[in-house]
């Protein structure tokens, strides 16, 4: 059981350092001076309602978008000052992009993760094949290697793309809703794999119970700003959830493990807002 560890030691060197980053898209500022940090190997979650800027911030971290202000540093290096290839050797991403026009095999899709590590003509290097096969085994998709990527179910695709991110051997793994399309068993498995894989993980998650169960630290985004951060249990209080997500949250204790889970109901608009901390 990989429960959340305690709060990060503030004196430890931060691995990922998102420093007052603002992101603009088509003239609109979607992310406002967001700062967040993760120590090496930590799993940091980003939660917030739809449109709160989670994906936009993540896209800035894996370099699809340039920050309008601030910097994203990994182990001290400004990612946006590196070449695209050099940055991709440090940061891998599992994006929400699933469409593909061309029918690559699963093995070919996974092998693309070695692209930033290749030289010259970009021919596969020694050991690439082994790495790819191992990553596929890790996500329990070894049997899919010779299948066409387009023929896979949504969950299978997600696992294959996760394997591709693994063979990139990144220092930072960025996951944008990694549990989308996955059944419950694979949701738990992907998040456990992300932690076991070793790199620092920054992940956007919709499911707050998953976030609470798998992240060391949570940052709550609303309208492009961080409104709360800290260890999950301190962050996910009913008052905050009512304010940010507009839901009534009821903490309950798992009868077996004692872990706290949240139950959600619609906020009754006519009822007064209960701002007291969770029972």
């Amino acid at each position, binding site marked *: 059981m990989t429960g959340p560890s305690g709060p990060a030691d503030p004196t430890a060197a931060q691995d990922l350092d998102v420093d007052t980053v603002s992101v603009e898209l088509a003239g609109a500022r979607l992310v406002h001076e967001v700062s967040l940090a993760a120590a090496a190997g930590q799993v940091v979650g980003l939660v917030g309602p739809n449109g709160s800027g989670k994906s936009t911030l993540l896209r800035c971290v894996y370099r699809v978008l340039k920050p309008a202000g601030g910097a994203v540093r990994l182990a001290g290096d400004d990612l946006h000052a590196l070449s695209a290839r050099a940055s*991709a050797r440090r940061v891998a991403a599992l994006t929400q992009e699933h469409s593909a026009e061309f029918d690559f095999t699963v093995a070919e899709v996974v092998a693309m993760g070695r692209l930033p590590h290749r030289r010259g003509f970009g021919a596969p290097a020694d050991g690439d094949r082994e790495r790819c096969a191992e990553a596929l085994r890790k996500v329990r998709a070894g049997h899919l290697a010779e299948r066409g990527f*387009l023929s896979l179910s949504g969950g299978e695709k997600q696992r294959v793309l996760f394997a591709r991110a693994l063979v990139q051997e990144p220092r930072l793994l960025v996951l944008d809703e990694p549990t989308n399309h996955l059944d419950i068993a694979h949701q738990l498995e992907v998040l456990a794999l992300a932690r076991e894989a070793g790199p620092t993980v920054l992940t956007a998650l919709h499911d707050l119970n998953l976030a609470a169960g798998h992240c060391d630290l949570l940052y709550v985004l609303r309208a492009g700003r961080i409104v709360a951060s800290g260890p999950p249990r301190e962050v996910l209080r009913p008052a905050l959830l009512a304010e940010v997500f507009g839901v009534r949250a009821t903490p309950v204790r798992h009868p077996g493990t004692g872990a706290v889970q949240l139950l959600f109901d619609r906020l009754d608009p006519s009822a007064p807002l209960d701002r007291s901390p969770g029972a």
Partner: protein
Amino acid sequence: MNRAPANGAVGPPDRRIPALPLAVGLAAALLLSLVCGVAFGFSGIGLPRVLRLLGAGLTGGRLEADEAAAYAIVWEIRLPRTVLAAVVGAGLAATGVAVQALVRNALADPFVLGISSGAAVGANAVLLFGAFASLGVWAVSASAFGSALVAMALVYLAARTAYGLTPLRLVLTGTALSHGFAATTTLMVFAADRGEAARSAMMWLLGSLGGATWGSVPIAAGTVLAGLAHLGCAAGRLDGLAMGDETSAALGVDPDRLRRELFVVTAAVTGTVVAVSGAIGFVGLLVPHLARMLVGAAHRRVLLVAPLAGALLLVWVDIASRTLLAPAELPVGVFTAVLGVPVFLLMMRRRGHAFGGRS
């Protein structure tokens, strides 16, 4: 978890053929076809004699006095024409692969996107009005290249939205603009008011290798080979781009930069090819598809097989175009369409999933 494919339309990749042996086979077939291209024609010269004349030309051997005419036909007419057919076929197939990755759509090719007809405008401006005369022998190629670039930029700018390129917009924009470019070519032909102009316009719109000389081979072959080399080096990055902009960026391939690169390569190769052969349709659409069906989608393999297959196809199409109704000559584009339309429809039925905007 181990569900069957949703629609059963996806062929199992185990039918794939190893790319390297296939490429060797295609290269051998191409070599044989080049000899056939020289041997077949209106004036029957006969294969043994053709081989002897080719050998004589290569080794500087002696000719009989009565062989001068046959030698001229073989060396000055048929050989450059056949070599050029191979070069054009390889170039069209390669640019087809590049454009399809560029717009991430298997329905695209330089012809569909209006690049070919745009290049024809530039080439005709030189041929009919003597534009850019100061560039000498390079004038047609340079002008075709320039107008191919302009045509591509126009299509790209007209089709793009704030959220990138959608395949449907691109194909529609390309179709519309290519009609505009074809009309411009036709207008120039009328304005030029020369007897041969109408025939020349037909050639530009449907394609022909009838004007091939050794003079046009080095430029065309050089550009196509350089383009192929560049695309070959970019094969891995093309895979990334084909998976989507986000994925591409996450893999360290700047999608916008790669697109600009592909723009220039495609315009250069298409422009040069169109300058020597007119706008030949379907090759850039069909051959990449056939290559993918045979060896899969990885660009490293597609770019090995597609140019050879394109060269092979065009050599035979050219042979057909000048022998079937000899001495009359049919435009090459008629044959690529005759072959292309049914094959295309068949492929679309078999692999329908690959054409829609399925996400």
